[in-house]
């Protein structure tokens, strides 16, 4: 049984359809990546999974339970957390407060020390800047806050929407290394990326989204070798 399953999911913004009946699965322990051009519907998919965008059709199940109608904040309790596109760092909160927000929905809020420790080990930079306010941090640092914050929820499924956006090349390497590390520590990851090269080489499986529909799926290496994927997403003629 898949940890996450989307069956025939559609989402509309007003009358305009952004997703027209997509189906995908994420198995426990996997890194699955969703690649696609601008406006393909990747962020919309993530918002639908987290519950901040209602479906106009289809069904989402998580851990065998239908969560299609479940309130967004309760999905976090179930174990789905997200580092959203654009990072969404709370500008007026310190690094510590931002991270603490990640654990907002947790019932065992007494023992967060371990989780803070884990985040500071993954991102030593955050440990040095605990009391800096989010709004004054650099883009890369904000990305670390966003990912670290999503980890504070101790999620079973971590959703990452373009974690490499706007980062310098050596930094992109580092972020992807950390994503693999998080996965190896036992967290299932659904990763949306523009950086298809990196994403496909890190992922177990991948889906290609094209204007609201899944056009291709396969293992990471399969898609890396696929000529049409190469042409469209890897900048190889």
């Amino acid at each position: 049984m898949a940890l996450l399953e989307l069956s025939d999911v559609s989402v509309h913004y007003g009358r305009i359809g952004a997703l027209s009946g997509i189906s995908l699965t994420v198995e426990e322990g996997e890194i699955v990546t969703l690649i696609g051009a601008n406006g393909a519907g990747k962020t919309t998919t993530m918002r639908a999974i987290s519950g901040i965008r209602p479906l106009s059709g289809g069904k989402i199940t998580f851990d065998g339970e239908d969560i299609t109608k479940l309130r967004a904040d309760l999905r976090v309790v179930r174990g789905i957390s997200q580092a959203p596109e654009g990072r969404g760092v709370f500008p007026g909160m310190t690094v510590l407060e931002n991270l603490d927000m990640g654990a907002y929905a947790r019932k065992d809020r007494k023992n967060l020390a371990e989780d803070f420790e884990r985040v500071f080990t993954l991102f030593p930079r955050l440990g040095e800047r605990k009391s800096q306010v989010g709004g004054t941090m650099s883009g890369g640092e904000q990305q670390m806050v966003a990912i670290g914050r999503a980890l504070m929820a101790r999620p079973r499924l971590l959703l990452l929407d373009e974690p490499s956006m706007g980062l310098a090349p050596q930094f992109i390497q580092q972020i992807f290394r950390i994503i693999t590390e998080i996965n190896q520590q036992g967290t299932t990851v659904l990763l949306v990326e523009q950086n298809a090269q990196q994403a496909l080489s890190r992922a177990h499986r991948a889906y290609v989204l094209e204007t609201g529909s899944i056009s291709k799926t396969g293992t990471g290496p399969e898609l890396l070798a696929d000529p049409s994927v190469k042409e469209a997403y890897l900048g190889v003629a």
Partner: protein
Amino acid sequence: MNHVVTFLADGSDWINFDVGALRDQFWNDTIEGLSQGSIYALVALGYTLVYGVLRLINFAHSEVFIFGVFGAYFTFFGLGFRPGPTPELGAGELILYLALALIVAMLVSGATAVVVERVAYRPLRRRGAPPLVFLITAIGASFVLQQILFIWRGGNQERAIRLMRPQEVFTIFGASVTNLQIIIVLASIVLMLIANTFINRTRLGRGVRAVAQDPDTATLMGVNKERVIMLTFLIGGLLAGAAALFYLMKAPTGASYQGGFLLGIKAFTAAVLGGIGNLRGALLGGLILGIVENYGQSVFGGGWRDIVAFVLLVVVLMFRPTGILGESLGKARV
């Protein structure tokens, strides 16, 4: 030495310019302004909290306040007090009755605020209504609440019920400071500190700040936005209820169904003056407004009191369009 400049030909003082009166009255004006300003500040916090979270100016907040005034008034009434001479009460008794009226007023205002949110704003939010619709609804809700009071009590002002006579406790530069002023200022400060600590130091308060800064991301963290919104209205209402009791203790006359309007507008002015969305801005704005209003009254004459408040607002906004402290609730930190 008084410089009274008279602008009307018949010599009646349409407007004064009496700097001497300000000099004579300076400390009296300041002290009285602080106690009046505390009331503005408590009400201003309600505007600021709701604005911070919803970007909505809750015009019905003035009626949330006036419901609290009636709540306090009828608590006095229910305790057996009637309009007329002020009774002689022992300190213990007085504190007990005032505490009771405070609790009732806070609960009445808090409940009113939550009901307004439920009945007027939540259905609009569900349907994704544009901001203008919220604004019209806010004004409508304000009228509905006023009319409820009118239908219940009629248009006449209730006759004042007093539990205590202001008595001088000590003097500052010759200006007397009364027990009433001390109670109002101290109680307001304590309540505002509690509200501030709640918003900045507790988990729920952090949820409120998160929704104010980025509602969608707050939801992704597991914050229940609807609950935060309700909580915000509740806190604003509770503070307005406390202000309501203090207002009733100070006001020369009793409660009236329209009594919230001017105070509400001034508290809103105070919130904008300090920087709307900013908790400390509401406090600062309220105190400054209370004090400057009194100075204005001394210099220009009684009729100019309310005008001074708005002239001050316009002048401050010309130089600092975001108000004196100018941050949003989101960014405000202790």
